[in-house]
Every structure is written in structure tokens, then in C-alpha cells.
């Protein structure tokens, strides 16, 4: 848990996460950020409280069938689902990301996308895409803009672009209006989680042509 996070999630995203209305890739981004950021976790849980009130205050609860309590006790008697093994602390990937990678940083199956930059697309529903990005220390991701919304969160190292400097746990929220060239700090390789609800647009022609193959 880091207290140094400067760039947080928006209320809109947190409420949509609490209501359960985000694509899976965005849920993964929010859950990963909340694992590192108690400020946003408190905000998200206050939006959960709205859901609690909605559940509680419904005008007409629906009767359960006869025997439903007994059926539930039978379910309980079958035992709890097997709990996930506790993970060691201080890892690079917070627990929700580890569930998608199947381990920590060393288990990520990277694919090169050129100039030392690597990515790993995570298995989510197709409404939006989640991927891990590896940017070598000091390197830049090609200049690009976005068709939709792109969220990028730093997991290791740091990067800078035209907007600001982003460290572990910081989220950059980009939309159509932002053209940026994120550049990793020289001190350490940078690993990010990036989520998009539309393909990226690369400003230069060549990367644009490759886009369908790269799925970015």
C-alpha cells in the first residue's frame, strides 16, 4: 500500500465499479488500483453503501420459496469454496492482477512490439482490452492518441509524458484529446497496466498499419 499516489480514479469510474456496470478490463484496473490506494478504496466503498441502501429499501422484497432456508443450509454444509492461497506481500502485481497472470512478474508471457517495448494481453471480455506493458528504462512508447478512454497505471518504475510524472499506483486517464509519448524513467524498467475501450490510434503511419496485428 502506497501513500505516494497522486493520480487517482474518477468518481464516475468508482461508482460504475460499485454498481457493477464496467467492462471486465476496467473492473480489473479499478480492483488493482484499490489494492494499492486506500483513498480510492474508501471512495469506492462509499459508493457500495449507496448500493446497500438500494438493496435495503426496495419496495417489494420477493418471497423465497418454501424450503429455501433448508436448501441454503444444505449448500453451506457442502463447505466453503477453496480459498485462494495467501500471497506473499510486497509483490509487483497486486492480487487481482496475479489472478489474471497466474503468478507474479516473472510469470508474465511478454510479446515484443518493437524497440524493446513488450506487452501481454490479459484474458477479459472483448468490450475493452487490458494489457501489461513493459517499457525499458529510458525508452518511449510511440506517440499515439486514443479513440476512446485509456487508463494506464504504473506497477513498477515510473514514466513521464506531456501531462505529468507517474509512479507506482498512479493512474493516467487519457481520452481522444490527448496525444502523448510516455517515456520510462531511466532508473528502472517500467511495467504498467493499460486498459482501453477502443483501439489506440498511432500518429505515425507505420505503427497504425501494424495495429490490427498488435491488438493495441
Amino acid at each position, binding site marked *: 500500500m502506497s501513500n505516494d499516489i497522486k493520480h487517482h480514479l474518477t468518481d464516475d469510474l468508482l461508482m460504475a465499479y460499485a454498481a457493477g*456496470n464496467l467492462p471486465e478490463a476496467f473492473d480489473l484496473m479499478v480492483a488493482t488500483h484499490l489494492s494499492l490506494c486506500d483513498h480510492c478504496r*474508501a471512495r469506492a466503498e462509499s459508493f457500495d453503501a449507496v448500493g446497500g441502501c438500494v*438493496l*435495503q429499501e426496495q419496495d417489494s422484497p420477493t418471497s423465497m420459496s418454501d424450503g429455501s432456508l433448508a436448501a441454503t443450509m444444505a449448500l453451506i454444509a457442502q463447505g*466453503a469454496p477453496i480459498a485462494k492461497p495467501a500471497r506473499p506481500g510486497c509483490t509487483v502485481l497486486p492480487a487481482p492482477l496475479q489472478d489474471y497472470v497466474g503468478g507474479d512478474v516473472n510469470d508474465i508471457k511478454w510479446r515484443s512490439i518493437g524497440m524493446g517495448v513488450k506487452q501481454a494481453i490479459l484474458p477479459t471480455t472483448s468490450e475493452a482490452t487490458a494489457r501489461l506493458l513493459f517499457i525499458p528504462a529510458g525508452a518511449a512508447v510511440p506517440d499515439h492518441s486514443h479513440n476512446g478512454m485509456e487508463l494506464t497505471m504504473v506497477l513498477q518504475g515510473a514514466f513521464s509524458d506531456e501531462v505529468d510524472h507517474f509512479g507506482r499506483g498512479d493512474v493516467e486517464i487519457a481520452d481522444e484529446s490527448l496525444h502523448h509519448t510516455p517515456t520510462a524513467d531511466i532508473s528502472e524498467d517500467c511495467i504498467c497496466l493499460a486498459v482501453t475501450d477502443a483501439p489506440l490510434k498511432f500518429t505515425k503511419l507505420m505503427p497504425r498499419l501494424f495495429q490490427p496485428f498488435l491488438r493495441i
Partner: protein
Amino acid sequence: MFTEIDTVTLDEPAAERPALKPRRASKRIRGKPVNKADGSCDTRTEWVSHVRRIRDAQDQAAFAELFQHFAPRIKAFLIKSGSDAALAEECAQEVMATLWHKAHLFDPTRATVATWVFTIARNKRIDVLRKQRRPEPEDLWWGPEAEPDQDDVVALQQETAQLRDAMAALPEAQRQLIEQAYFGDLSHREIASQTGLPLGTIKSRIRLALDRLRHAMN
């Protein structure tokens, strides 16, 4: 991506807002706790002790009371979310079974039992109706040695009751929009977070609870 409804944001300090004058709907009950099947309010911290009794003693009587109160609400919630009655019944049973198994994870300084039940029911909806995984943040809980302070528990429950009053006082159309979003109606996915609800105090309370929890864990 999102449309605006109102102008008060989550982060606005509570003190700067005008005093809240909740308009109470007649069906709601004020004053001493009333143990009634469908009208009792969640200001009671009894539900909290019910969950503790399940956690500490596998108390089936406590579970039966929780079931009687919450299972019909979970079922109604899932039907409004697009489920048929048979599936909603099945899911409500599974949600209640999860409540039993996860009783040790419930933190009453961060959520009422209703809020906690909502999060389990929401995740069940995403899993079963949307057939989608639901990534959740890393679990945090007090562990076997530490217990949350009772004053903090009462304060959080009271502030949630104030939130409920504020929701009841919202204009009908706005309250329905919020309800639709929380029922998972995806045509309302672009709801704004700026609802005008007094979430700042609850947020601060939960933040305090998280700080204490981190301290207790270290």
C-alpha cells in the same frame, strides 16, 4: 462518457453542504428498533452481531433471521437486474451461503450488513447474468486478534442511515436513475457519480477504518 446529474461531488467537505432535511417515507420506521420482516431499518447494529454469531459460533438461528430479512431482497434485486424468478431464487441462496462462509471477512467499520450483502449479490449478478469475472481488490480484515471499536461500528451504521434518508429525499426521477444503475441496467451505465448524496462523511469514516486496519495488520 458520463452524463452529469447534479453538482455536489464526493470529495466536497460535508460541512459546506446545507444541513440535511430528510423527507421520510411513511413506511420507514424511526426510533427504537422494530423487528419486522420487511420494514425494519438497517440502523440496528443487531445485524452486525448476527454476522459475528455466525462467524464465532456457526449460529443457525442468527443466520435464519438474516435469511428472512435479506434473501427476499436479494431475490428482488436480481429479478430487477434481469434474472428470472427461478435463477434469482437459486442465486439468493448462494449469496446467503457466501455470507456464512465469508462472515470472518465482514468489517462493520467499513460497511453495514446491507452494503456487504449488496456487494456479494452484485458480484453474483456479474458472474451469473453477465457471465463475466469480477476482479476485487485484495482482502483486508482485522484478523483473529484485533476487533474493531464498537463506537466506530455505530458511527458507520448511523452515517449509512443518513445516506438512506438522503436517498429517500431525492427527487423521484433521480433516485430511480441511481436505482437503475445499481440494478445493473446497462442502459444506465453512464450514470454520473455526482448524485448530491452525502457520501463525504462515509468516505472519511471508511478511510479512518482502513488506516486503523492497516495499523492493526502491521
